[in-house]
């Protein structure tokens, strides 16, 4: 209980004058308003309790509106006007109380021993259930306060994601908690969400408490790239975590500039299920009859249904003994007639699936089982960045992400059941599936069809969670959004997007304005279950210094490896 006797070192900035739990606290500011910003993290000491809150608004007020309505400096002598303004014109803060902590009586007071006897555990912040007294002093939170709430950076699971905007105190994210539930990183284009995502992923990989599977639609995360804004080079995860990260290219020949892939993913026809195809209903414009046809195909051909259907031709006819034309034995219509399916419906489906049949990464017998390799790598505590290379259409993205994720779901469900039933003593490795452009997979129409909504809702108990990266959170199905534990958002302009990010959270009114006023590329708002209280922060820079800070002592102890790497004789930097 180190902070028992430590009061916040910062000076008082105001005092509580009114308010409540529902309506926020009103705080009269005693310093110039420019010293406090919306979103400032403040502490309020009242009796033995410390309250933690967030400034959600600043308002100009006057003891009498008439003092504000005239320019006092023109009517009165300058120093009289100054004194008058100081005593009659004020700035009030609206402070949303979020947490409180019972610090108990002073250590040297007679009551302390009794209190300590009744409170054997060190006091911990809890959701606010009462309010401070009138005139309780309000201070900006200092480094100790922020560490009390958000944890103290340990370069592992307590990961620094930024700093407070006023005084630059470090603000951390508990990565263990972050991966326990699905999370989201949001922001408009240019808000810095890709850099933020890279940084958090680097933290996750470095902490090594969970594996990550990154569906890298735009080739941003694996290889080193160049910033479109500054032209500076941006480190990818593969270059920094060479041994921990597997760089996987979709299809043969997918490359990452000068960086080779660890292996390429080619998907066997037999790995494609009818479920995978049904999840593409919208994009392939499939009819309602398609489900029946696919069901029959699977019944007739089992795992080989995709290849068998691909081999059938459309419109092929032969002349029978009676001289009449009838469907050729290798035609779709021939099979359909045998299977009791309307030939027209089957031929229409065959035609629509033509877009899949010509995907070069879907082949009958791939040289290696890329899907299995990905799952094995993830179970083996590695991290996988799957780059789509030139196959960056929506169809490719939906098909491959769904297919892989379905395999993952099956594997992790099995591992979890084995673990719980005692068949395996190894607890499944937590897995975070990182999905970019998530609204394509998780919009209202798709959410019911794709595997991702299931993961967001149910897979937590099977050790799999999602990390959604998106610029249009309003397009993501509400039910999925409400499941997101931690939300980190850069600036958002659209009212619907702001509402979506705040859905299901208390104090939305105060946070709404904050989201719309975040500085692009600089500031983000962290909120949700995974963070003790919402807080806007100046995000940590994803630059050379970031890597120096992240690897810190580890690199010092790897002097030999460092030298070898510099000589090009070793590439192990993680």
């Amino acid at each position, binding site marked *: 209980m180190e902070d028992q006797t430590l009061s916040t070192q910062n000076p008082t900035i105001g005092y509580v004058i009114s308010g409540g739990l529902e309506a926020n606290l009103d705080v009269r500011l005693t310093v110039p308003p420019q010293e406090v910003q919306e979103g400032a993290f403040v502490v309020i000491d009242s009796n033995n309790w410390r309250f933690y809150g967030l400034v959600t608004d600043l308002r100009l007020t006057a*003891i*009498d509106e008439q003092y504000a309505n005239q320019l006092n400096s023109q*009517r*009165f*002598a300058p*120093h*009289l006007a100054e*004194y*008058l303004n100081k005593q009659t014109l004020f700035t009030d803060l609206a402070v949303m109380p979020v947490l409180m902590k019972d610090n108990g009586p002073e250590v040297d007071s007679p009551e302390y021993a009794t209190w300590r006897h009744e409170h054997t555990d060190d006091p911990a912040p809890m959701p606010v259930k009462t309010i401070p007294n009138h005139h309780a002093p309000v201070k900006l939170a200092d480094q100790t306060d922020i560490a009390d709430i958000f944890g103290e950076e340990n370069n592992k699971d307590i990961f620094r994601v930024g700093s407070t905007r006023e005084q630059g105190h470090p603000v951390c994210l508990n990565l263990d908690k972050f991966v326990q539930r699905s999370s989201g990183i949001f922001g408009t284009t240019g808000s810095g969400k890709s850099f933020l995502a890279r940084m958090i992923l680097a933290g996750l990989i470095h902490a090594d408490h969970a594996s990550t599977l990154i569906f890298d639609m735009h080739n941003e995360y694996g290889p080193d790239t160049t910033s479109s804004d500054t032209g500076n080079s941006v480190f990818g995860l593969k270059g920094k975590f060479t041994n921990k990260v597997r760089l996987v290219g979709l299809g043969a020949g997918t490359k990452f500039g000068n960086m080779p892939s660890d292996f390429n993913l080619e998907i066997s026809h037999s790995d494609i299920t009818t479920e995978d195809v049904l999840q593409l209903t919208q994009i392939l414009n499939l009819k309602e009859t398609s489900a029946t046809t696919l069901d029959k195909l699977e019944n007739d051909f089992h795992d080989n249904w995709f290849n068998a259907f691909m081999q059938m031709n459309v419109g092929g006819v032969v002349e029978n003994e009676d001289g009449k034309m009838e469907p050729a034995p290798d035609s779709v219509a021939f099979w359909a007639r045998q299977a009791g399916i309307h030939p027209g419906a089957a031929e229409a489906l065959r035609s629509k699936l033509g877009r899949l049949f010509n995907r070069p990464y879907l082949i009958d017998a791939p040289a290696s089982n890329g899907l299995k390799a990905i799952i094995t790598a993830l179970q083996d505590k590695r991290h996988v960045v799957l780059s789509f290379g030139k196959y960056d259409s929506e169809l490719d993205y939906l098909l491959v992400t769904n297919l892989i994720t379905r395999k993952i779901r099956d594997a992790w469900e099995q591992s979890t059941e084995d673990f719980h039933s005692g068949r395996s003593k190894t607890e499944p490795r937590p897995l975070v599936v990182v999905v970019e452009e998530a609204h394509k997979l998780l919009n209202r129409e798709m959410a019911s069809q794709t595997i991702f909504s299931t993961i967001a809702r149910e897979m937590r108990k099977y050790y799999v969670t999602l990390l959604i990266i998106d610029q249009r959170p309003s397009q993501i199905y509400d039910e999925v959004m409400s499941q997101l534990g931690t939300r980190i958002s850069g600036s958002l302009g659209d009212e619907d997007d702001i509402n979506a990010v705040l859905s299901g959270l208390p104090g939305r009114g105060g946070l709404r304005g904050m989201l719309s006023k975040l500085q692009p590329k600089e500031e983000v708002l962290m909120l949700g279950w995974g963070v003790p209280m919402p807080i806007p922060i100046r995000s940590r820079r994803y630059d050379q210094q970031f890597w120096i800070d992240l690897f810190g002592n580890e690199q010092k102890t790897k002097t030999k490896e460092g030298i070898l790497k510099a000589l090009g004789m070793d590439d192990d930097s993680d």
Partner: protein
Amino acid sequence: MSETQTSIPIGKLLRAENSRFVAGCRVRELETPALGALVKVKLEDQSEIYGLITRILINDDSLVRQLVSGVSIPTEYTADNRYNRNLPVEIHVLTVGYTQNGHISHRLPPRPPLSLDVLHLCNSDELCHFTSLNEQAYLRHILRLLDQPVEELLAAHLRQAKAAHDAANDVNWYSLACQKLITLLRDDYQRLTSVLDVLTDLERE
């Protein structure tokens, strides 16, 4: 207190209550007292009661009414009426504090002064000392006057006190007094702005 800084007797008490009292003096003695000046009355028990002059009143009588209604008044009549009449000039004083056992308080005294107690004009040292104490709490007494032009009384008092404090190199006193007045009056917009208007005029003189 230096010899040149001796308190000047300016009259004797006519009537009194805790919060205010009235002294009388001859017209010839009237050169010294002024509106807003700090005065005191020394009691038999050596305690002192302080006040501010809020009003100086010259009453009429039947003789002066006859003279005023005459066509012309010889100069010697005017002088005789002014300087030899038996009716005193009234000096109205607002009680603003007292001393007891050497301690100055800005509250009202437990008892008023008695008739014929001597009224003294406080010298600069006494003025500076009294007005510096208790965060100028005595100013609140002025603000409770309802039958007086408070702004003018404040301006008169602050001008005299500021001069005394400036002479004693206490240049902050006036600023503190202005802030105190704003604190006391800020809930009354009309009254405060009137006071500040007068103080602004005073400073621009």
